[in-house]
């Protein structure tokens, strides 16, 4: 039976292998580049001021490439689910060949299981190898940048992509079985899985483990360490604050700026400070605005996950995706046993 599964998958496997080769060559060269850049950074990192500048230069040199790669490689599971998973049953149903293949001396669940295992293995190897190479290539960068928890980066590193690949393939296969048409099944798989990949990190992941909570005093230094003041939606918000002593922790949620009595800072007061602060000649990212806000004795309440939880999150998320994929496969086997002719 595996002969037919392999024969039907041969061309797609070849395409996958070719893509992996290109990705691997690129990532290995990138890995060397990143390591060269890291050596350069170390060589220039003689005192604190030089060190910060060298680090910024090193980050700037690779930031966009690595983000682009994380986004691009993050698409592999969804694409494999759509192009390999969705047609697995749907194309047979569409061409009527299920009536040929399901009447050989192999039961339908066994036929499906064989096909899913073969194609799923290929998808896991493709996704897993690409992710492992990217993790290796980006390792010195991740050490300096400390944003391994950001949604895009987290999903492209470590073992989580293996879980994604499994779930996407199972999702595509079952969608094909239910919709019975290849193209709609491919579209639903692609859109559905990408939506899930967006939904999970933003809604589910922060709550997978109960977060730690902390109150951060908003001194001028702390404000200048943040990334942005104010937001698209208005309000007295600050983004990208860092926790003293745990600079690489993942801040899952940040409250608006709050005054000493715990109330949110009045937006008019906030606006005055940001738009027309008294001139003091202070430096830093936000300059006079930071000084003006610091005088108000503000704080924010944050919930966060320490950096040490990174692998706990990776394993948890991989486990969840693998389990969901397994449930979908079981459903597919049950469904196909009942008949879909």
């Amino acid at each position, binding site marked *: 039976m595996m*002969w*037919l599964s392999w024969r039907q998958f041969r061309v797609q496997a070849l395409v996958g292998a070719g893509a992996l080769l290109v990705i691997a060559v690129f990532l290995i060269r990138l890995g060397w580049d990143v390591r060269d850049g890291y050596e350069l950074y170390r060589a220039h990192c003689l005192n604190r001021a030089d060190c910060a500048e060298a680090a910024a230069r090193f980050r700037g040199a690779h930031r966009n490439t690595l983000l682009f790669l994380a986004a691009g490689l993050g698409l592999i599971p969804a694409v494999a689910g759509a192009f390999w998973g969705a047609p697995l049953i749907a194309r047979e149903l569409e061409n*009527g060949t299920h009536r040929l*293949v*399901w*009447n*050989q*001396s192999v039961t339908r669940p066994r036929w499906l299981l064989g096909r899913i295992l073969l194609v799923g293995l290929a998808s896991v190897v493709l996704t897993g190898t690409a992710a492992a190479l990217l993790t290796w290539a980006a390792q010195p960068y991740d050490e300096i940048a400390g944003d391994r928890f950001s949604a895009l980066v987290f999903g492209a590193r470590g073992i989580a992509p293996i879980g994604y690949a499994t779930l996407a393939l199972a999702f595509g296969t079952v969608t094909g079985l239910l919709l019975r048409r290849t193209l709609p099944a491919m579209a639903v798989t692609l859109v559905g899985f990408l939506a899930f990949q967006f939904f999970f990190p933003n809604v589910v992941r922060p709550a997978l483990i109960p977060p730690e909570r902390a109150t951060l005093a908003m001194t001028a230094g702390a404000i200048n360490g943040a990334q942005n003041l104010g937001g698209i939606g208005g309000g007295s918000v600050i983004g990208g604050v860092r926790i003293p002593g745990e600079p690489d922790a993942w801040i899952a949620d940040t409250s608006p700026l709050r005054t000493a009595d715990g109330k949110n800072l009045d937006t008019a007061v906030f606006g005055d400070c940001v738009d027309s602060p008294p001139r003091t000649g202070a430096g830093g990212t936000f300059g006079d605005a930071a000084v003006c806000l610091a005088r108000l004795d503000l704080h924010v309440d944050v919930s966060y996950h320490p950096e040490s939880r990174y692998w706990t999150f990776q394993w948890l998320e991989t486990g969840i995706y693998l389990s969901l994929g397994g449930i979908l496969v079981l459903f597919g086997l049950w469904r196909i046993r009942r*008949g879909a002719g």
Partner: protein
Amino acid sequence: MSLAELPPALGAENLTKKYGRRGRTALSGVNLAVPSGRVIGLVGPNGAGKSTLLHLACGLTEPSAGSLTVLGSRPAASASHLARVGFVAQNTPVYGSLTVAEHLRLGASMNPSWDPDLAKRRIGEAGLNPARKAGQLSGGQRAQLALTVAAAKRPELLIFDEPAAALDPLARQGFLRNLLEFVRELGASAVLSSHLLGDIEQVCDYLIVLCDARVQVAGDTRDLLAEHARLVAPRAEFDRLPAGVEMISAEHRGPHGSAIVRARGLSAPPPYRVEPVSLEELVLGYMTRAAGAPLAGAGAGEGSR
């Protein structure tokens, strides 16, 4: 073991199949007990439920109610049961991108009982080039390929769903001849559905007439021909038929009437005249009755035993 002791090739009890939520009834209360060792013709108009019955028989769908056994077991219940039943679906699907030889390899890898010599010989006899992609074959050649894949696993029962419907007359002849040769060589039973009576008459020795989701009549063709007759008489006489004579369908032209009737050993006295019927007349009679009076199917059950 004699044929009579074998489990029936097809055994149905109150078999019913409905599709979808709105519940279009494809089969309704079908009872069948078809002995093994026969070539069974399943005839009926399009949409009568023939494909549904055959798909149920090879386990592609499940009944909504009632039960169906094939060679004594639930259809497609296990790999070993799948090995005993060969199925050629309507339009004889094959993998367009696989060659003829790869189809034989497919069969060999998925069927423990595969007979490679039989397959190779039949492909040669049908004049198929093993290196040719199945997508480039003519309809007749594709049907021969599908037939070979279904038969070379040496099943005990071969099921064909409208196998020759899309073929030109010459290809149909060749296909049906090949089909019969396979059945003889394997010593298998066969079920063959068609809306073309000619095909059925040519190859089948057992007949099932399916109209309007119900079995109208089923039985050995010789028995059926012996039990049915054309009765010709003055029109008025049809109002008082002799006892034991069941009217199937009537056709009255002029002062004389003519009807297909069912009665065992019918020897009606004048003014009746009894004539033998052809299989085609018999089938048309039942189809006419089903089409004219859709609710008259109540009496169909008796005919199916």
